[in-house]
């Protein structure tokens, strides 16, 4: 019995140890430290080597810390519920600027920022306000514009007048994105049919692929992936079933040359460079900096493939009107 209880304790300890190791955020061994005493950290929801959101975000972060000679560190797999503890830990350690690469960190920043007035908290993605906190500054992408334009691209490219939006979980931002995507699609092709489907997961590639195959069989010929890591499945299905798709956040045409018409390309470099610049000058202002079509916050990859040149012209004309304020996507 003694042997048994010891063994059980050992196994419990192993399991608990494994739990701590595997669920804890992974501080990457690749975090390199430069000589500059100003320490800057970044939080990512996933891995910086996987997917299309954290990869270009990390690349922009890396470029910025090198340019401004900051001492960098970054944390992968920093889930939202762990964010307050991570932010508190980093700020207590004396990190001067903490960049959070997802809108989901907003609540954690608002909770922690007031406790650490000497640390600058920065968010990239979406924020409607910074809660009057002087040490919380946000770079907010205009996702309504983004959805509207991608919808317009899909509709203009669809020969069947039938497109599909394949989203991950049914969260408010996803529902809002779908709403503006449909609005954008109907702005160019009023009688377009738009299927909207949730996979219920941001990482289930197989499910996304299965869904994509199904909507293609029903006649959709342009698919809009919006499920993060699972988007690979949608793009694969489009590639295999001779349908088309739109890459998200970075140029994805090299991976699916037969399927990708164009990709949205977010100007991560510009946003991160502004963060570095303002931090160095001590001018981070506690405001929301909007990234949209009028200030090169994002664009579409050119040239478009697999569609007539007119599609590209029409879409860029629409984008120019949005940038000048001639089209208000909110109306």
């Amino acid at each position, binding site marked *: 019995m003694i042997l048994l209880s010891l063994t059980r304790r050992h*196994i419990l300890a192993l*399991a608990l140890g494994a739990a701590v*190791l595997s669920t804890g955020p992974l501080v990457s061994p690749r975090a390199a430290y430069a000589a500059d005493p100003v320490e800057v950290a970044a939080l990512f929801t996933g891995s910086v*080597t*996987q997917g299309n959101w954290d990869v270009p975000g990390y690349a922009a972060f890396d470029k910025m810390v090198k340019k401004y000679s900051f001492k960098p560190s970054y944390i992968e797999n920093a889930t939202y519920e762990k964010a307050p503890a991570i932010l508190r830990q980093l700020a207590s350690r004396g990190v001067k600027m903490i960049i959070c690469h997802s809108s989901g960190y907003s609540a954690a920043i608002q909770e922690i920022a007031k406790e650490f007035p000497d640390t600058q908290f920065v968010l990239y993605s979406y924020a409607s306000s910074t809660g009057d906190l002087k040490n919380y500054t946000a770079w907010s992408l205009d996702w309504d514009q983004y959805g509207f334009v991608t919808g317009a691209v899909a509709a203009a490219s669809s020969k069947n007048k039938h497109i599909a939006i394949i989203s991950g979980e049914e969260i408010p931002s996803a529902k809002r994105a779908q709403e503006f995507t449909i609005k954008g699609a109907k702005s160019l092709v009023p009688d377009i049919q738009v299927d909207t489907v949730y996979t219920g997961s941001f990482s289930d590639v197989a*499910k996304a692929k299965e869904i994509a195959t199904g909507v293609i069989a029903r006649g959709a010929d342009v698919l809009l992936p919006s499920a993060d890591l*699972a988007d690979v499945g949608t793009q694969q299905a489009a590639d*295999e079933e001779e349908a088309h798709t739109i890459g998200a956040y970075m140029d994805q045409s090299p991976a699916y040359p037969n399927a990708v018409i164009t990709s949205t390309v977010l100007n991560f470099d510009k946003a991160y460079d502004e963060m570095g610049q303002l931090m160095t000058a001590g001018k981070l202002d506690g405001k929301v900096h909007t990234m949209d079509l009028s200030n090169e916050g994002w664009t579409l990859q050119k040239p478009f493939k697999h569609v007539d040149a007119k599609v590209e012209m029409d879409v860029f004309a629409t984008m120019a009107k949005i940038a000048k304020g001639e089209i208000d996507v909110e109306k």
Partner: protein
Amino acid sequence: MVFDPITISLLLAAAIRLGAPMLLASLGELVSERTGVLNIGLEGIMLFGAFGAVFGLQLTGMPYAAVAFGALWGMLAVGVVAIAVASLRADQIVVGIGFNILALGATSLLRDMVLSPAFQSPSLRNVSSYRIPYFSELPIVGRAVFSQSPILYGAVIVAILFWIFFRHTRLGLIFRAVGEGASAADAAGISVTNIRFSAMLVTGIMTGIAGAYLTLVASGGVFVDNITGGRGYLAVAVVIFGRWHPIWVMLASILFGAADALQYQGQAIGLSISPPLLLMSPFLLALIAWVLVGKSKTGPSEIGIPFLRGQK
């Protein structure tokens, strides 16, 4: 909402494809459970198998070699669980849960270390689809049932073989005897540890192939973190739903696959049920299965109970 032939065919095809990883894993789990081992670590083993298959594909460029890699990684992964459960007689639930959490972190780390983000998968057509002559031309069921992956056809054959094994062979009887009464089997001179260890290795191979199916057939050669998405847990429920019978397990996995498929086929055809409600349907089925296990009289009597010589 229209249930036309295309919709029915798509739903059936999706049910079978989505049920396939659960079928492979649950057939493996069935063998363990028949010997009294409740292997909750199926989710983690499937993750290792999924990773191993893509790693194998990257190394060899050959889809079937990649499947073998998936089976091997599944076997190695289950070896860790088997040492703890069968040899050291640790608590099966605690070890299984701990292993699943470990697998999530370990496969993420391994992906980061050894899988190339720029890896372009070769054609996987020969492992993802085979049209059975004549039958694949049949209306509705042709494409849905007879144009599936050869791995899936293999799983059907394995289900039949497992039924024969447990029903008509002496070794199958020994496996069942260990699950029904380990002490009695031990008294009869049967090595309970060896039988349980062997059964778990079969579980590892089958679950590793399930992971390989998930990445090679269903995901086109891509591995992402947590790609299994709870399928391992569902496979445990499938075994219970299938009443520990290989043929019923096969049908139960298609039922779970159908629940999974209905999630989005329902959304796409405008089924007026809230998407979150549809999304929870496979897990609702799993919950029913777990409730049923408490009332079941057909399951192995000593399931989940570590074997300790001299204790009843």
